[in-house]
């Protein structure tokens, strides 16, 4: 094997792939060959580095130089300057949003975005080649499996997981060890272990990134789980919209089989285990465990009431255990380093870390992993780099369509399962959407409800009809047709749906409405009573006005499709609000910033 003196790591996650990282790799390989460096420098396609905002991302080791937004044309310069002559290409090096400093002199760990993170589940993402099992093994991969199978009884494995305090990272936060205990206690000739990779929350993509960047960690953990509960077969249910993740997982499964890490008599322990991938069509409800199992069985993805819980009667009516991708990614570490180590991270009752997908109005969109108990402020301002364009922070939405909005007054709350629930939101799978002063909270609630109405499977009435009624009311409000009593109606519907819906999707669907009502009731009232959108967002509630900055250039009247603007040359023009379509074409054209919305 060649010993390379430098490694060029190119992000091959979905984000960077779509901005052309595959071409970068090609160009690097070609340029290195041309310069005769192909035996000295290795090019590696890795999983997601997390800082998707700066993609495509290239990291050069041993220096740990972080190049951002690299274009194919830039590759020649990196090769001839950095790799050949050892001079970092200053203008391509990532600039820290928070400090506005170039990171030329820093190594990766010192960059603001990474400094406060603690990457456990994402430990190998962006570090190893996900399609090379040897690199996973090099960083202690499959060591936990070996330890579990050769040194521990299934009961001991469960005890470590239980003692670690690991809770389900899919959102609800049920203790993983307890789940395993229940499944282990069920007697049956066949049991199954399932991985829920049906990541459906808008904006959340940590499961995808783990499967893309470190698929072996999930395979290893599922095998350990299989040993613990007595299952010999596993299924990964992953949505077909994640082609890169599916491809890499399949490659990883094939490699593990070839090495005998899946199959018969693993590590000579007498334990057999194998696993399969099942593709989902991307229905949100299939993230619900009973619906997911029906879908694997080939039936409609509809939930059924619990109990019976999957641990008693699950997939193919056999006892099954189902965990989320991120939960599994933590398991090998816990087995290797012990329950006490894991508990030392995070807060009591909430051990470990959580991965969040930062999105919305924030500078560093991407994937971050932080210890439980980190404050929202740290995540948004220190790691996320704050709000772009000097705007003011308004709220952050966590937990996707099942979660809620958290206003500025709770920014200093320590993030964990219980604290988020206590302020009317939830952890969820970890989507974190930041909103600034331009976001209308009524419209945000409408957006999430629109999503749930779309994704409701239709089996139970509260969810099928109730959420639609709520959406209709919200649509009316955002269109300026809100009536007195709408808020009370929304609240009554929300409580009923919460209490009576069949599955988690319906039970949590009203959360975005309830939490915005709780913290931003004044915005609802402004829409209903004053027919005004305080954030100037709801199109139908806006009036376009021309101010005295107008020079009478007539551009706006020419571009207006409705002929709503009149006036004479060199004099202030006027918009006829009855004709105005509120399309915004005039604002775009005006060179003097004379047209405003209010």
């Amino acid at each position: 094997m060649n010993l390379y003196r430098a490694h060029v790591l190119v992000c091959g996650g979905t984000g960077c792939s779509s901005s052309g990282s595959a071409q970068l790799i090609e160009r690097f390989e070609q340029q290195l060959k041309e310069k005769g460096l192909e035996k000295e420098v290795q090019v590696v396609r890795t999983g997601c580095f997390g800082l998707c905002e700066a993609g495509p991302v290239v990291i050069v080791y041993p220096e740990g130089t972080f190049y951002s937004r690299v274009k194919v044309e830039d590759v020649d310069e990196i090769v001839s300057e950095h790799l050949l002559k050892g001079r970092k290409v200053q203008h391509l090096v990532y600039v820290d949003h928070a400090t506005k400093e170039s990171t030329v002199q820093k190594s990766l760990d010192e960059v603001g975005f990474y400094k406060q993170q603690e990457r456990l589940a994402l430990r190998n993402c962006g570090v190893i080649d996900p399609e090379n099992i040897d690199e996973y093994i090099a960083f202690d991969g499959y060591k936990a499996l070996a330890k579990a199978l050769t040194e521990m009884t299934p009961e001991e494995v469960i005890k470590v997981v239980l003692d670690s305090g690991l809770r389900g990272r899919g959102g609800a936060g049920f203790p993983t060890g307890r789940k395993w205990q229940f499944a282990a206690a069920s007697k049956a000739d066949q049991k199954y272990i399932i991985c829920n990779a049906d990541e459906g929350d808008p904006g959340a993509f940590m499961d995808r990134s783990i499967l893309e960047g470190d698929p072996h960690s999930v395979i290893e953990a599922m095998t350990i789980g299989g040993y613990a509960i007595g299952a010999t077969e596993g299924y990964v249910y992953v949505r077909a919209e994640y082609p890169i993740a599916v491809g890499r997982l399949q490659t990883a499964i094939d490699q593990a089989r070839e090495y005998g890490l899946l199959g018969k008599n693993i590590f000579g322990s007498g334990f057999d285990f194998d696993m399969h991938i099942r593709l989902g069509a991307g229905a949100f409800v299939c993230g619900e465990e009973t619906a997911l199992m029906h879908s694997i069985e080939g039936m409609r993805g509809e939930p059924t009431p619990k109990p019976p819980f999957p641990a008693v009667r699950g997939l193919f009516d056999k006892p099954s255990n189902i965990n989320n991708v991120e939960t599994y990614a933590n398991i090998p570490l816990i087995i290797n380093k012990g329950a006490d180590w894991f508990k030392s991270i995070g807060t009591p009752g909430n051990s470990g870390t959580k991965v969040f997908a930062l999105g919305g109005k924030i500078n560093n969109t991407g994937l971050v992993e932080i210890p439980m108990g980190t404050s929202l402020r740290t995540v948004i301002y220190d790691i996320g780099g704050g709000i772009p364009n000097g705007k003011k922070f308004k709220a952050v939405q966590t937990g996707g369509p099942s979660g809620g909005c958290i206003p500025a007054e709770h920014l200093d709350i320590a993030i964990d399962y219980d604290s988020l629930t206590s302020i009317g939101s939830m952890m969820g799978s970890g989507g974190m959407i930041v909103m600034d002063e331009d976001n209308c909270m009524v419209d945000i609630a409408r957006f999430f409800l629109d999503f749930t109405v779309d994704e409701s499977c239709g089996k139970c009435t509260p969810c099928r009809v109730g959420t639609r009624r709520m959406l209709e009311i919200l649509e009316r409000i955002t269109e300026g047709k809100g009536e007195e009593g709408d808020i009370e109606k929304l609240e009554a519907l929300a409580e009923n749906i919460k209490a009576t819906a069949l599955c988690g999707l319906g039970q949590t669907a009203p959360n975005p409405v309830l939490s915005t009502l709780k913290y931003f009731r004044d915005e609802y009232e402004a829409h209903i009573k004053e027919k005004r959108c305080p954030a100037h967002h709801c199109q139908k509630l806006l009036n376009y006005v021309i101010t005295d900055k107008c020079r009478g250039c007539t551009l706006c009247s020419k571009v207006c499709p409705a002929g709503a603007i009149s006036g004479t040359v060199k004099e202030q023009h006027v918009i006829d609000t009855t004709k105005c379509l509120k399309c915004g074409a005039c604002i775009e054209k005006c060179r003097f910033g004379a047209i405003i919305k209010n």
Partner: protein
Amino acid sequence: MKSLADLEAIRAKTLENIAMRKDHNDAARVVVGMATCGIAAGARPVMLQFVEEIKKRNLEHVTVSQTGCIGMCRLEPMVDVIMPGKEKVTYVKVKPEMVARIVAEHIVNGRPVEEYTIGAAE
């Protein structure tokens, strides 16, 4: 693969190659001057010799990297060796055949090779 030993063998073999991707604060660094002057004076074979020597001795915590010109072109090829917690030592007019001694005495045993250093040359 049937045993822990097999797994360990793969781990050790691959780690040697990719260890540099984990940040080591305890890593020793060999920095070779590779500007035009360095390259012209023969820095490339020197650097490759370092890579070769480090591989031969299985030194996990050593990285070899490059740097630009620091102005003393007449003394190139120049090599800095920075041991964790120690002052950097600069070697000048390094030739490939000097590398084995630098690695053995300085990096492995912590005793800089005085006669090759910039102090001796001045």
